[in-house]
Each structure stands twice: as C-alpha cells, then as structure tokens.
C-alpha cells in the first residue's frame, strides 16, 4: 500500500497532477472575499476564520473527482480491486495521498492568506491547528463521495452535492475552533470534537468507501 | 365562521396555504407518474404477449 501512496504522490507532483490546483483556488477565493464584502479591516477580521475554513473546504472538494475517476478510466481500479492488498487499505491510502497533496498545502498557506483578511494575531496558531485536525476528515469523506460517484458520467457535480452536507459538522467545529482562537477564547471543546470527528472518519469511512467502490465496479 | 386571526393572519394563512399546496403538488405528481407507469406497463405487457 505504501507503493500506492508513493505512486499517487509522484503522480500529483507531475505535470497535470493537479498539485497546485487546490492551493490556487484557495488563494483566488480569499482574494475575492474583500471584493465582495468590502475592504473594512474590522469586518474582514471577524469573518476571516470562517472564510479561510470555507476556502480550505471548497479547495478540498475541488480536487476530489479526479481522485478515483482517473484510475477508473485507465483500468487501474479494476486491477487494484483484484490485487492482494485490501481495497479498504487502498482507499485509506488514497485519502492520505489526497490529504498530503491538498490538505497540507492548505494548512501551510492559510496563515499567509489570513494576513490578507486581517486575521487577529491570536487566530493564526489556532487556525493552523484546527485546519490540521479537520482536513483529514475532509479528505476521507471526499474519498467516500468519490467512490460513490466514480462510475457516473459527469459525476463531479453530484459528488459536491453528496459531499457538502457531509462536510457540515467538520466545518462547524473547525470554523468555531478557529473563531474562538481568533477571539482569544478557549477553543478546546470544538477542537476535541473536530479531532474525534476526524478519527472517526479515518477509521470507518474506508469500509463504506470500499463497499461503494465494489458496487460500482460490479 | 372565519376565526379572528388578529395581526398574524398573514402568517397563519400562508403557512396553511403553502403546506396544503405542497401536499397537493406531491399528490398530483405522484398520481400523474403512476398513471404514466401503468400505461407503459400495459404497453410492454401487450408487446411481450404479441411476440413473446
């Protein structure tokens, strides 16, 4: 399974691998926000944690439909399903690869974009922590959504419709943790809920995703 | 006969109106869909009987 991880990482870094895609989208979205709500820094500062979390979430969503669809088209999924490695493990690794290629860069870029939105000083640390803890859940839920819609033509839109409601708990706890951090309050409870959510997703969703994938390959 | 609804008459009436409208629409669509399904089924059954 490590081989699968290394292959996916190498693929993502190659041209056309879509490595910078999520990052670029996140930057553009953050730049557009002041144009839409106006440049008052006080207003921007209050909504900054929420906007940054929403941007990270949508950036994750953007790169999901490529996750399995490419392997489906070139036959790799069929061979992977008959390979000796467990499909659940393969999909967990897919989620990990998506997290490393999309989730982590977002976490790294978030503080820089926080400056654009006049994020209060205290908020930077908690923003990074909440994103670090929340993005694994986003990736794992994304793998489940991708497994559901892998066989469907133009499944990208349907994937978003299915995955966004599933993102709601992660967004609420993540943004709340970032907002409390920015306001100087104690973000312990939302962070704990977020961590629990992420761990639950990592532990259980690969099984649901591989069940869905087997149904799609049938 | 009409009960005195006071200043919230609009809210109450529109609540009942919207709800009954939605239920009627759901019912109507379901019936139309069922009628079409029955017609298709009859057609398909005749066809299989003819060249079955």
């Amino acid at each position, binding site marked *: 399974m490590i081989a699968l991880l290394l292959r996916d990482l190498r693929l993502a870094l190659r041209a056309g691998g879509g490595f910078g895609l999520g990052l670029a989208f996140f930057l553009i979205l953050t730049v557009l926000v002041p144009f839409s709500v106006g440049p008052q820094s006080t207003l921007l500062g209050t909504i900054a944690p929420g906007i940054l979390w929403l941007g990270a979430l949508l950036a994750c969503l953007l790169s999901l439909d490529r996750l399995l669809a490419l392997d489906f088209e070139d036959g790799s999924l069929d061979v992977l399903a008959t390979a000796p490695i467990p499909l659940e493990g393969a999909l967990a690794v897919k989620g990990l690869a998506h997290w490393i290629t999309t989730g982590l860069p977002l976490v790294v870029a978030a503080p820089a974009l926080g400056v654009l939105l006049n994020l209060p000083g205290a908020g930077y640390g908690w923003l990074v922590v909440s994103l670090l803890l929340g993005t694994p859940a986003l990736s794992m839920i994304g793998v489940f959504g991708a497994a559901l819609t892998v066989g469907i033509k133009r499944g990208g839109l*349907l994937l978003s*419709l299915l995955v966004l409601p599933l993102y*709601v708990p992660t967004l*609420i706890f993540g943004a709340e943790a970032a907002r409390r951090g920015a306001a100087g309050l104690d973000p312990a409870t939302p962070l704990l809920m977020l961590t629990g959510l992420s761990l639950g997703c990592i532990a259980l969703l690969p099984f*649901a995703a591989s069940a869905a994938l087997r149904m799609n390959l049938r | *006969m009409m*009960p005195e*609804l006071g200043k919230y008459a609009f809210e109450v009436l529109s609540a009942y109106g919207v709800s009954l409208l939605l239920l009627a629409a759901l019912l109507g669509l*379901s019936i139309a869909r*069922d009628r079409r399904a029955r017609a298709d089924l009859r057609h398909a059954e005749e066809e299989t009987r003819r060249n079955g």
Partner: protein
Amino acid sequence: MSLWEYANPVKFLRLSERVLPALWVFAGLCVATGLIWGFFATPDDYRQGSTVKIIFLHVPSALMAINAWFMMLVTSLIWLIRRHHVSALAAKAAAPVGAVMTVIALATGALWGQPMWGTWWAWDPRLTSFLILFLFYLGYIALWEAIEDPDTAADLTSVLCLVGSVFAVLSRYAVHFWNQGLHQGTSVPVATGARTVSDVFFIPLVICMIGFGMLFVALVLYRTGTEIRLRRTRALLARGARGA
C-alpha cells in the same frame, strides 16, 4: 405467512391495491378533521396569538420528515442484507415524500417564528437541522437519478443513507453547539411524556399527527407501486430485447 412474504413485488402490488383506498380515505379524514378542528375550534395563545395554529402543520410534518429518513434507513438495511427489491424501491419512493415534509416543516417553522423573531429566518438550530436534512434528501434523490442500473443504484443509495444518517445526527448536535437556539420546547416530548401543550390543543394535534402518518404511509405505498411498475416495464423490455 411471514412479513418477508411481501418482499415479492407482485404480491406487494396486489396487497397495496387492496389497502390503499381505505388508507387514502382514513388519512384524508384524519388530516381534514385535525386541521379544521385546530384551525377553527382552538383559542389563540395569550403570547403567540393566532400563530399557534401553525403547530398543527409544523409538528406533524417535522415528525414525518425525521421518520421518513429513519424508514429509508431501515429499508436500506433490509435491501443490503436481504436483497428485497420492494424495500429498496420503498426507500426510493419515500425520499421525495420526506423531502416535501421537510420543506413544509421549514416553511411553517419560519412563518411561525416570524412574529417572535421579527425576521423570516433566524438560523434557529432545530430549523437549521431540518435544512441540513433537506440537503441530505436532495443528495439521496439525485444519486438515485444519476445511476442507470437499478441494482447498483439501490446499493449505492443504501450506503449513502447509512453514512448520511450518522452525519445527520452529528450535524444536529453540531448545529445545537453552534447556536444556542430560540425554538420553544418540544410540544410533545415523547420521552418525558409531559405535555407543554394544553389539552385544548393536544387532541387536534394528535389527530393531525396520526393523519400525517397515515398520509405518509399511503403516499409511500402508492409511489412504491409506481416504482415496481416501472421496474417491471424495464424488465419486460430488457427481456424482450434479449429475446428478439
């Protein structure tokens, strides 16, 4: 004759044909009496004025919205475990009904809250949970429509329903955590049994709830019949094409 007897679509059709007329009449009567009684014969609430009459629509529809999803969860499990087509098609038939019930609950909830909140929508946690539930319904229905092969569609939507249910419950608590809430206490807390609604409202409310329940069952039976007919047409045509 075990319950699984009715897993055979043709037998199910025959049974539902017999039961449906009575069910429609009974549901119609219940809903009509409940709503008319509640609308005309109940006094105004000293605080909320006449808006309290909306309770007769809001509470039953909210109840049905949640029960519909729970019913879909159970039928999805039955499909995954015992592969009974009727239960998968019943889930597919129930989804739009559940979605409409959720919209009614949302609309009546917003209208009912308007005088107190002063706005049409106040992101009240309970109402927001119904908004999220509505999104789940949309995703479920969209997934059914997106897949041609009926069996794969039934499988995938069942998995989505299972996973969706877990996230729906999570969302409900997340939403309560996110906003403390302006909703009044549950009118008929089933668990505690205590009634915060005085008697004069309670009787018509219960009638309405029974009425909405019967209406839901009737609608689902009726729509499942339609789904079975569509599947039968598809099977006949597929076999016809193969035979030719």
